């Protein structure tokens, strides 16, 4: 499956390597696609070594337009410290402007480093904006990646539409059962991750299984 229409979930407790996985995906995206851009909701500034830092989407626009006027090179990665809503809207706007199904000119990697800091969706609701991203990612060339500490942090819609999941250590069997159900794995598949060590993870891909 192409990465251009992937949807990634990373689930694990704090300090187990979730951000490392998202960083790896971001790096691969920027290395693989010469015209690809990365938009990261990065409140904790963990992507500033590969993405330019902006306090707002307007600052990003201004910097891009200054680069157009001066002809200078513009960093393709952007790390934002503002609200996630404006970043999501920006991704959709750029996707509609540059991409269409079968012709992705600007692949967009859209990462939320901590979904608990998202304003648009949570454990009991999904906003229309996020649904738009999930449902139209193939047409807009957007690869959304969600980083969460608990599987209950986001609603089932995110899991049902996920094309790959990185599952790190889980604290209990109940957690793993619920996660297996949400992702669509066999019961017991993630039992090895109960109490697993840090930095160990299982990688599941839609249509393929655990790889």
């Amino acid at each position, binding site marked *: 499956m192409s990465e251009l229409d992937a949807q990634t979930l990373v689930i694990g407790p704090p300090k187990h390597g979730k951000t490392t996985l998202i960083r790896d995906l971001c790096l691969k995206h920027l290395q693989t696609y010469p015209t690809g851009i990365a938009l990261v909701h990065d409140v904790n500034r963990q992507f500033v070594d590969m993405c330019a830092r902006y306090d707002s989407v307007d600052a990003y626009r201004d910097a891009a337009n200054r680069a157009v006027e001066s002809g200078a090179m513009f960093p393709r*990665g952007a790390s934002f410290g503002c609200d996630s809503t404006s970043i999501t809207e920006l991704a959709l706007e750029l996707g509609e402007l540059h991409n269409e199904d079968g012709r992705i000119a600007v692949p967009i990697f859209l990462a939320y480093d901590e979904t608990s800091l998202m304003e648009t969706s949570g454990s009991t609701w999904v906003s229309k904006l996020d649904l738009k991203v999930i449902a139209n990612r193939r047409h807009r060339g957007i690869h959304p990646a969600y980083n969460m500490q608990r599987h209950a942090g986001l609603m089932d819609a995110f899991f049902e539409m996920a094309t790959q999941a990185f599952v790190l250590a889980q604290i209990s069997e109940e957690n793993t059962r619920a996660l297996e159900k949400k992702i669509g794995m066999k019961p017991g598949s993630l039992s090895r991750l109960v109490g697993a060590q840090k*930095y160990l993870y299982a990688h599941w891909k839609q249509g393929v299984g655990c790889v």
Partner: protein
Amino acid sequence: MKPEAIRQRRYQAAKNKELAELRELEARVKPPDGTGVAEAGPVPSGKSAGGAPVPPPGTYDAQSAPLHTTVKVTPVGGPERFAAPATRAPSSEGAQPTPIVPQTPEPEPSPPPPKHQTTIEEAKLFAKAVVGYFKFGTGMLLAKSPEAMENLRQLAATDPEWGKALSPEGLAAFYAFIGGCAERTAIRYNLRIPYMDEGVTVAAIGIATFGMTYRPKTPGDASRVKAAKDANTKQAAKPAAPKNGKPSDQPENPEDHPVTPIKTGVGEEEIDLS
């Protein structure tokens, strides 16, 4: 054989070959007893029957899948390492390159604020002012023309219709009519008393300030003024003493004795008693 027929036969042959490969694939994947979920088995290397690349083998049984370890990577060179032109190549020849991030469009200018519409309260105040002004003006007119006033009295006394109209009830109705017309005019033409708020505020402050600073005249002031006047008058009438000591037979010329103004002590006003 016609080219179209040849094409049809080639297509059919490819389709048959594809179907055969698909059947072989299914036979390898399907379990012998026909129960349970198909498990991923060895797939033919290279391309699938449809020509698309085969996905790497995986398993739905995560127990046998390996666990991976995260690897921390720190890119060298910072964000500038992944920099690129901020524009996309034009889609057609001769077109301008498209900026990857468009500038936010300028917000539309806000519409001008709506013109003030006179409220009901403002219209009523306007009407009251018009009626008050009418009463004041007509009162002044009648005060300056006693004959007209007398004529109106006689008219009211002799003609019952005029008597009714000029009675207090009749006048009140007339004033109410004027007020109503003025009120509707104010609403229709968006009129109001200009600077009414400012004027009332200044007048209120001015009257209060005047009240606090005004010093009324005391009863003793008037008699002091009168006494000073009398004293000056007597002094003016008294003959002047002669220079050689003898009384003069000629009457005194008041111009020879200019009178000095006396200050009465009331404010700073000087009263010339000459």
